[in-house]
């Protein structure tokens, strides 16, 4: 139930921000439509801790700034490699063991790997992620596991 209410709040906040109309009638219509969506989602049985991940709470908010900094560092690195005339790439494929237990945290980790330019997660199976990296250094960074630990910290100890 707490997931359904959080979903309704998130939907209604998005609706209010996107619509830009603030008359009581339209706001009421928006509230009703959001309630209908939540009702249908409940009947489809898709409301759970994965669809509405409120249990991550503030921990995800401390993870994102760190991730954004990593993404910009990686952007500059890949830009350097693409623009240098000798094309200094050394494509590498490695497998890493995930430190996360829940599927959701594994998805967060795999998507963080992909979101960081220079590394793409190619296959996730059980607790193993296959990563393709544009350079051996990038692969070594992943194998070293800082991001793995940070993503595991998101799901809580």
């Amino acid at each position, binding site marked *: 139930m707490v997931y359904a209410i959080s979903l309704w709040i998130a939907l209604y906040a998005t609706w209010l921000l996107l619509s830009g109309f603030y008359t009581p009638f339209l706001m009421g219509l928006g509230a009703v439509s959001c309630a209908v969506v939540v009702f249908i989602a409940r009947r489809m049985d898709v409301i759970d801790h994965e669809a509405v991940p409120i249990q991550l709470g503030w921990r995800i908010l401390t993870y994102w700034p760190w991730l954004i900094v990593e993404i910009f560092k990686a952007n500059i690195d890949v830009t350097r490699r693409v623009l240098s005339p000798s094309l200094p790439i050394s494509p590498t494929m490695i497998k890493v063991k995930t430190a996360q237990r829940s599927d959701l945290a594994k998805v967060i980790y795999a998507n963080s790997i992909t979101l960081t330019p220079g590394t793409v997660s190619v296959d996730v*199976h059980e607790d193993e992620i296959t990563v393709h990296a544009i350079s051996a250094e990038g692969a070594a960074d992943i194998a070293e596991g800082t991001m793995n630990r940070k993503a595991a910290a998101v799901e809580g100890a």
Partner: protein
Amino acid sequence: MFVAAVFAILITMALAIARAVAGPTVYDRILAVNMFGTKTVLLIAVGGFAVGRPDFLDLALVYALINFVGVLAVLKFVRYRDLGSAGPAREPGAVD
């Protein structure tokens, strides 16, 4: 200054089309089309500001979502040759 950003995006769209034409695999083409799609989102956003009509952003928002769903649909079709299939849970032994 918006014009410079619009030009950068247009150049990249042209490069993406070149890659989509060159291929060689179908996945290269899908990658290029996906990139073209995200550049369309940026182009609509920047273009809306350039002509002074930021309400175009709603279109950009919809484009971002349609592009994502579209790429997944094409990938699913390429992989299973059937948009309705649930697909096998996992194809064994494909990754070594």
